């Protein structure tokens, strides 16, 4: 446990000032900030919008629509590859592998840091979306804070589903980034798979595509085809499968430099 904590701290330090770190912050804030600017631009609509009972659901859905369909998968592809490849870019695998850390701890720490960054992105996005809905009340006297109760449970559940939908992308990008030294391979493969998933949205068996699930959330489907099988099991299964393969490949690599 002591080693895991030490390794996690070290991995977290590596993200300091890194492109991945800035990407998470920018990615988390971008959509809510754009929507906020839009609201300010059409400020005459704000009083009615904030008074409506569906104000939270309406704006959270709008923000998630842009985020989940495009920005989130792209961001996850980039952040996972950037974090996983920090050792390749700095030529530091050999130093890390001569540190007194078990390989399993190194693997687990890297994956945990990626998931933590993803979680941080979610938190920022939610806070910024909350701000997007409530901030106009601070600037305009005729605008009130939304009176409708905040749908805390629904929002948490929505976030959990999107988080789960992202896990196959994290796991597969992690696998590619550990396997290939060339940064373009995981990025290219990731974007390619994402585009393939978009094309496969209307395909009967589209649910088998591992990068499709965040878009699937918006299609109104919750089951696979005509079955009663909840499709959210698939990202969980894919994540476990890809992580397992990735761990075996990492562990059995003959050259750890």
């Amino acid at each position, binding site marked *: 446990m002591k080693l895991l904590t*030490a390794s996690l701290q*070290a991995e977290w*330090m*590596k993200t300091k000032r890194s492109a991945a770190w800035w990407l998470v912050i920018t990615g988390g804030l971008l959509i809510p900030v754009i929507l906020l600017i839009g609201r300010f631009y059409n400020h005459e609509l704000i009083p009615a919008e904030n008074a409506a009972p569906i104000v939270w659901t309406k704006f959270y859905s709008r923000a998630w629509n842009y985020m989940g369909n495009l920005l989130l998968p792209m961001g996850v592809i980039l952040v996972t590859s950037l974090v996983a490849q*920090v050792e390749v870019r700095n*030529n530091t695998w050999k*130093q890390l592998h*001569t540190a*007194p850390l078990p390989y399993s701890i190194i693997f687990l720490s890297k994956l945990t840091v990626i998931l933590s960054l993803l979680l941080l992105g979610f938190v920022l996005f939610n806070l910024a979306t909350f701000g997007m809905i409530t901030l106009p009340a601070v600037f305009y006297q005729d605008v009130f804070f939304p009176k409708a109760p905040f749908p805390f449970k629904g929002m948490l559940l929505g976030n959990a589903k999107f988080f789960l939908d992202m896990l196959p992308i994290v796991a597969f990008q992690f696998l590619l980034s550990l396997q290939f030294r060339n940064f373009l391979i995981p990025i290219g493969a990731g974007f390619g798979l994402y585009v393939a998933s978009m094309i496969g949205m209307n395909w009967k068996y589209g649910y088998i595509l591992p990068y499709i699930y965040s878009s699937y959330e918006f299609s109104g489907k919750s089951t696979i085809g005509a079955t009663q099988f909840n499709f959210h099991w698939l990202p969980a299964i894919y994540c476990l499968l890809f992580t397992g393969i990735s761990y075996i490949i990492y562990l059995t690599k003959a050259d*750890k430099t």
Partner: protein
Amino acid sequence: MYLLETEGLSYQFRKEETVLNNIQLQVPEGSIYGFLGPNGAGKTTTLKLVLGLLRKQKGRVRIFGKDLDFDRLSILQQTGSLIESPSLYLHLTARENLLLYQRIYQCNPNRISYVLELTGLSHTGNKRCSSFSLGMNQRLAIAVALLHNPRLLILDEPTNGLDPSGIIEMRELLRSINRNMGITILISSHLLSEIEKLATHTGIINNGSLVFQGTFSQLMQQQQAACSLFYKTSDNLAAQTFLRQRNIVVDMDQDTLILPLLPREEIARINRELMKEGIDLFQVHAPETSLEQTFMNLINQN
């Protein structure tokens, strides 16, 4: 008792290509062991195997009396290394790089300032490593290797790419680390002059085989034993017969007699006796063997 030993270490990248063949490294405790060899001889591969960076195919590695296969973590806890180029997170500062490894090694945080001071990098402040010179990065890599106060330091060509003053600084630093802290250093290089100035022991590798191991004086002695003595006399045939009668192996090449190199006193005695036999000596020549020549001979023999 050796601090680091390998037994029968062999390695192949492909089936038909043997990179290392039965390497038996023996690094005495407290020594600076210079691992010498031309480029591509197998130095880096050996050091990677010793550190567990390459999966071992054949042989054993023992460090601090422990087997690398069974005690990897406890061995690495007491070993510092720098393999090929410096391994640093270039977007971080020198202190941040060290802080990161301080967490991993769980050593005293005061060591960070100490190793920065030792390597002359305490003034770097908020400067990121990406803006450091190669020499500074090389010194920081040494600082990382020294951070946890290791017993053994493994350095693969640490002076590569350094200018002459950087090489001198590095040499002084390593010498002081060895003398003042008692750290055993295994350092590889393809530069004989570099190793000669620094190392107490040496191992010479060529084409994947260890062709010599010992101190520099042992190296010179070994080479001298293989050297020859050249005589030109007024009567080579009579001189050859005379020497053979005294059980000295003599060959003749045109007008020159070739004898194995003998002690100076023995050479003087033979000279006197040949003169007594009425054989004039025109030339007695024992070529001087420089360390460089010895090194080249070993490399070329192999």
